[in-house]
């Protein structure tokens, strides 16, 4: 083996020094977290006026997004506007990291499932009506995953490695694995991670076609739950090699079910393997986990398999919550904003409630939070599972 640089990872992990978030709950992380802990549900009517021939609850952003500056007009999609909103919330944290480490030492690894598909839907409909694509439409700058990286580079001065992880709904957790490896192998000194996804017709209609979209607000782990609800938004988190952080990235586990494109292993084996790997890398025991941010989509099969996996690995006493009843399932961005929720639980010493879980499905034997709980919270395990049998679990810890 020829390693030029020995991996530097220690059991202390890496500090998460800043974060930003937007979702149906608010346009900043403060608004989002305050709404989460106040118990406000962001799911509601079809505020974006998507053409849908069925009823469902959606989690759209609650306010209009600012346009990109004119020199980035070709990138000016809903996805890119969310990116700019989030970069602005980070404030000086990102430029400061670039100043500390150098522009080429700051990497960007983002998660997205649909990228600019929402814009391409409009462009395609325009082409059907007018026989040509809109003058302003650029496939590379509006549709592609790479455009998200280009926008974030343009809005910051980060010039290090940049790529998008797109493994559907696990993407937002897998970016933490990328960051950990880039830092450990010495390819970067800071990594901006996160995920952004926008509501679009294909995603909503697609989940409906699979019979896993609820007609009302989703109710993860609840009795009679009948599917998920979709939402939009995103989060950015800055992970650095050193320094004080709001929390620490301690461990990531990534596995494949190798079972079915849209259904989990019924015994939760893939999820257990991912959670176990995350705990092992974090250097902690199952009993150390104070809270589990569940993937908890609200579909009968997913919630049951995840509950089985949590019970098998962590037992029945650890508090568990899914926040998708607040935000909707934000697809590739979901796990990234739930990373912010996980860190907030550590920072605030408050565990969020699992909205919609009452009455609880009696088949599930895990400890679901039916209300906000005050608790000493040192370690949070956050799950994300996806189409294709992709599983990713992340352990976050309190700052040391």
């Amino acid at each position, binding site marked *: *083996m020829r390693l030029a640089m020995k991996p530097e990872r220690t059991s202390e992990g890496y500090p998460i020094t800043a974060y930003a978030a937007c979702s149906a709950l608010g346009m900043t992380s403060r608004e989002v977290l305050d709404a989460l802990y106040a118990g406000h549900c962001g799911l509601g009517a079809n505020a974006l006026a998507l053409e849908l021939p069925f009823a469902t609850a959606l989690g759209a952003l609650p306010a209009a997004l600012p346009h990109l500056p004119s020199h980035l007009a070709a990138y000016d999609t809903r996805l890119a506007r969310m990116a700019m909103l989030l970069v602005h919330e980070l404030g000086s944290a990102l430029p400061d990291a670039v100043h500390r480490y150098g522009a080429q030492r700051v990497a960007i690894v983002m998660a997205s499932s649909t990228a600019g598909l929402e814009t391409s839907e409009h462009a395609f409909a325009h082409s059907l009506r007018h026989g040509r694509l809109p003058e302003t439409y650029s496939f590379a700058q509006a549709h592609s995953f790479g455009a998200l990286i280009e926008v974030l580079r343009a809005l910051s001065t980060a010039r290090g490695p940049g790529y998008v992880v797109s493994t559907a709904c696990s993407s937002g957790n897998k970016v933490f694995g990328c960051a950990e490896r880039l830092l450990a192998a010495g390819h970067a000194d800071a990594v901006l991670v996160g995920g952004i996804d926008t509501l679009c017709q294909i995603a909503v209609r697609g989940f409906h076609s699979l019979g896993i979209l609820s007609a009302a607000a989703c109710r993860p782990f609840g009795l009679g739950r009948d599917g998920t609800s979709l939402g939009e938004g995103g989060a950015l988190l800055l992970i650095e090699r050193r320094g004080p952080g709001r929390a620490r990235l301690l461990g990531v586990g990534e596995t494949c079910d190798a079972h079915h494109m849209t259904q989990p292993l019924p015994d939760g084996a893939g999820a257990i393997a991912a959670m176990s790997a995350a705990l092992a890398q974090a250097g902690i025991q199952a009993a150390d986990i104070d809270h589990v941010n569940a993937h908890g989509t609200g579909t009968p099969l997913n919630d049951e398999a995840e509950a089985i996996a949590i019970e098998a690995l962590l037992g029945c006493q650890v508090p568990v919550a899914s926040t998708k009843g607040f935000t909707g399932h934000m697809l590739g961005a979901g796990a990234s904003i739930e990373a912010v929720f996980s860190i907030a639980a550590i920072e605030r010493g408050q565990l969020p409630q699992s909205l919609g879980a009452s009455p609880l499905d009696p088949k599930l034997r895990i400890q679901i939070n039916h209300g906000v709980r005050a608790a000493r919270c040192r370690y949070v395990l956050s799950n994300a599972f996806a189409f294709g049998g992709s599983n990713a679990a992340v352990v976050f810890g309190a700052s040391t």
Partner: protein
Amino acid sequence: MIELDVLGVALWTPTQTSVSVASSLPPLAAVADVPSMTGAGLRAAPAPAAGLRPLAPRPLRPDTELLSVRARGRASLLTLMFANVIEQASKAAGIAGQSVPTVFGSAYGEMTTTLTLLELQHTGDGRLSPAKFQASVHNTAAGQISIAQGDRSFSTSIAAGHDTLAMALLEAAAWLQSRPGVLVLACADEAAPAVLLPDLSYDAVAVALVLSNVPNSCPPLARLRRLVQTTTPPDALTERENPCAAGLPLVRAIHAASATTILLNHAAHQSWQIDVLPTFPGP
């Protein structure tokens, strides 16, 4: 610094020859003609080295035994391309059938399937096909191949525009630096999606490399080293090629068995490059 051995390589394009390279075989007997990329939108390549043997042209839909007959029939072109090159490269490296971590790279992903969904939205009652929808995600190939092979090892699916190959190499290297062993890297993109990219035309390209950073029983084909940022020379700049087209000169360099540096992105002023070092005498 990145330093990886290449144990096997495979490449697929619809109009050109396919190639796989087995490190355990005598180089010239095993090496096929590396395609001259003169198809629409692809950059011209030097003529194949004298004495190399071209393989027969491949059919439009690549063949693969990684997927069952039923799965092959339903699979997208992109998934078949991935399966084909992963299978060929794995056979060449002597790791076929083994559980190996895999990094999938594609700038645009399942575009043909996505375009079908866009059309379905405007057809009849606008109902989408659930089979098409679940096959439209970027990690469709990763999921379908892992299911077909019963392989639960790590995989990921990334995208980075014309930097996709470079970033897949970085992701692969970072994985191997944390967990030394063998890994398969595969990058593929379909032909330009004419509906959304009407002014551009290029062919589909798929490439796979079996990479290792541990001693192996067979000698490596080449060594990859020093993945670094660079500036694309103005005369090399073009956006008119497949985002994965940089895989072609990379395969050529491995075949040529000569020390060289490969520019991995011709579409942007800022690019990445990697050094290819021979591990056996060239032709």
